[in-house]
């Protein structure tokens, strides 16, 4: 027990003035598996990015085997013996398995030229793959491997670098059950060989089975550090979500008009993505979609909005069937889609607030000969809308959206869609990365929307947010609906259990 490999003390980290980690401290024993737990946004990934050299800490110390370390990039961390297996694997699909494993330490032939020793490469790669029980030929291109085997390639890569500590970030989200089982066996074996492992996962059953100790993070702070033997899933769940949620959400009357259906899905399926999704979203209703990352929530939203195809089923808006695969049709039918990725997909960062707000409704505002735009008219329109959604900025036609806070950016996104007068809003993680005050305002706007008869499909990783805002919640897991909960039956633990159901 006294043999500590990694020791983290008083780690602090902030982004743009928001404190993300507060005095995080924990130890990883040699030959132990440490489970790092917490809700999305609780600071798990940030902590691991500090250890793995991808981010730099503001203060605190990290010691590896008794010596203080400060990795400046992923390469430094690798050299120190820290391997980080990301949720999104970093393999190159256009290269073979063996090339991926040895990409930055190829065995070379003797002689003056830097030529790859293909025979040694094959031999070493075969050895490494045997360690993880993968029987694929080392020359197979990675693009041909199933997801689970790619994960094993990443582990083989870590082993060839003589890692002392392997960090797994949500390794099972894209694995099938047998693949997960094989991964666990390998983790067991590595542990028995004295390797230390940090295992990040939402699947608490796996954590209980696999880990020796757990650390629970909440809002960037360590809430609990205990051996697995002394805790239980119930206890961990309450530690993870145990924040009081009084006054976090504005009051709202029930407006739901159950006699009509604003958005209706019947048996929507797409092989490999979602299966048999059916629901009716009524005017004035907020339907929450809960589920872990990779459960198919965002993919479903993209399908509804026509960005991705679906193989079977039917989607209709206000009783009219929607043509598949056309975002334009979806918009014309009155659907607005606020993507998960505000910066990447939702906003033109260099353009002004007014320009962003007006973007999707320009065709509607154009009028007269040659359908030109009247500057005074559209500016007034943009100003009115940005006041309606409470955007705070120096100037709506000069301030670039890039300069706004996350909360204000989100309000701009909502404002721009509001101008198109949609009937159905799909909100994918509407409050991700924005602070509590701005969240409250976004919630108020959502309440206004439904009070005016719009229907809202709200996707969120934060269960409390859905409990506070939704009339109904659909839980998804592995692309399938796992159950619907009405407002009177909202129960945090029941919801989480449904999402973790395997």
């Amino acid at each position: 027990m006294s043999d500590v490999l990694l020791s983290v003390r008083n780690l602090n980290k902030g982004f743009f003035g928001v404190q993300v980690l507060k005095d995080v401290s924990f130890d990883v024993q040699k030959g132990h598996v440490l489970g790092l737990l917490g809700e999305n946004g609780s600071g798990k990934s940030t902590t691991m990015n500090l250890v793995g050299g991808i981010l730099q800490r503001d203060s605190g110390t990290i010691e590896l085997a008794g010596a203080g370390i400060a990795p400046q990039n992923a390469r430094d961390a690798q050299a120190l013996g820290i391997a980080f297996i990301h949720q999104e694997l970093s393999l190159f699909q256009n290269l073979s398995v063996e090339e991926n494993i040895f990409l930055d330490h190829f065995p070379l032939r003797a002689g003056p030229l830097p030529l790859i020793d293909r025979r040694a490469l094959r031999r070493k790669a075969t050895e490494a793959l045997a360690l993880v029980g993968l029987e694929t030929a080392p020359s197979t291109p990675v693009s041909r491997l199933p997801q689970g085997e790619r994960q094993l390639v990443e582990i083989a890569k870590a082993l060839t670098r003589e890692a002392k500590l392997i960090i797994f970030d949500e390794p099972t989200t894209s694995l099938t059950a047998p693949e997960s089982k094989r991964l666990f066996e390998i983790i067991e074996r590595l542990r028995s060989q004295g390797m230390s492992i940090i295992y990040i996962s939402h699947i608490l059953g796996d954590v209980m089975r696999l880990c020796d100790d757990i650390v629970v993070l909440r809002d960037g702070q360590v809430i609990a550090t205990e051996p697995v033997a002394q805790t239980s899933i119930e206890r961990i769940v309450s530690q993870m979500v145990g924040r009081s949620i009084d006054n976090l959400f504005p009051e709202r009357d029930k407006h739901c008009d159950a006699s009509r259906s604003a958005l209706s899905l019947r048996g929507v399926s797409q092989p490999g993505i979602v299966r048999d999704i059916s629901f009716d979203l009524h005017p004035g209703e907020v339907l929450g979609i809960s589920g872990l990352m990779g459960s198919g929530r965002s993919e479903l939203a993209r399908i509804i909005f026509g960005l991705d195809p679906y193989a079977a089923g039917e989607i209709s808006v206000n009783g009219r069937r929607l043509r598949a695969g056309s975002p334009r049709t979806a918009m014309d039918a009155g659907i607005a889609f606020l993507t998960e990725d505000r910066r990447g997909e939702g906003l033109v960062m260099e353009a002004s607030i007014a320009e962003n707000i007006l973007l999707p409704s320009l065709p509607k505002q154009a009028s007269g000969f040659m359908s030109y735009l009247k500057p005074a008219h559209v500016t007034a329109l943009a100003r009115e809308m940005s006041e309606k959604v409470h955007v705070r900025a120096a100037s709506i036609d000069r301030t670039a959206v890039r300069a706004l806070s996350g909360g204000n950016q989100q309000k701009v996104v909502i404002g721009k869609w509001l101008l198109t007068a949609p009937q159905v809003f799909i909100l994918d993680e509407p409050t991700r990365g924005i602070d509590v005050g701005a969240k409250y305002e976004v919630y108020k706007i959502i309440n206004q929307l439904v009070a005016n008869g719009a229907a809202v499909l709200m996707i969120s990783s934060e269960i409390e947010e859905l409990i506070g805002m939704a009339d109904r919640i659909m839980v998804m897991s592995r692309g399938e609906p796992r159950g619907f909960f009405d407002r009177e039956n909202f129960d945090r633990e029941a919801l989480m259990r449904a999402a973790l159901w395997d």
Partner: protein
Amino acid sequence: MNNHRLLLAILNAAPLILFGLIVVTLSLLSDSFLSVANFRNIVNQAAPVAVMAIGMTFVLLVKGVDLSIGSVMYLVAVLMGLYLSGLPLVVVIAAVLLIGLVFGAVNATFITRFDIAPFIVTLATLFIIRGLALFLSGTRMVFQSDTIQTMGRSALFGVPYAIWILAIIAAIGWVVLSQTPYGRQIYAVGADPHAAEKAGIPVRRIVFSVFCICGVCAAIGAFISVSQIGAASATFGYQKEFPVIAAAVLGGTSLFGGRGGVFGSIFGAVLVQTTENGLVMLNADPYLYPLVAALIIFLAAWVDGRRTAITERLERRKIRVE
């Protein structure tokens, strides 16, 4: 899903099919087309474009592009004719390689140090370098020394020297791309520069080096071409970047990075040259040439776009296993 794989296979084979069609058509229409002599002639004429397409392949592999190669060609020809004509062949060759390296490094510096898009940087150097060369030549025809002209006509074992140079460059290019760590890392950078950075690969250094390689190949292409023609007019190398990029893309190198290789690019160059050769043999209207060339480039880009879209779809992450 299987339909996609089939379509992908057809798209991959599209240039081969096209080549087959052209060869069959031309040999039906012209008696002299299908002969060893004519084919040697085609490869000999394709050699400059092929060498430059090999350099372009390196750049395209990291999702870059180099539009300045046609201008580098002209500058090399002008410097050779005006300032290097009296010097020994070895010195001339060394100077030519150095010129290519320098202008490749200029492009690379702007791209990696100042983070300007390769398209913009090389579009600018396209005009700057040609402007510089036109200033030096005064737009007059620049003639090459007798040594160079003799070399252009010489052959070894009945094979023109241009084909020998092409073979050497191709061999080096293939070894570098497929048999060295550096070459494999180029592919990794092209597939995903961020992931490459995370995997500890020196991304900037690799991007810098590929533009240098492309510059050197452009200079070699200029040397071969000018020795074959014997003189350089003011339009020498003008718009040469298009057949070169088309050759690489027809040969299976993607404009989106990460896919392609040396031999494909040579094949692409031969395909482009065969078409031109055929048009000449058929006495086609010379004003038709650009139209046909444009058609081939369009086809190449379209095939590449479709291929990339399908590959991405095939590689997309699955949530469920069914």
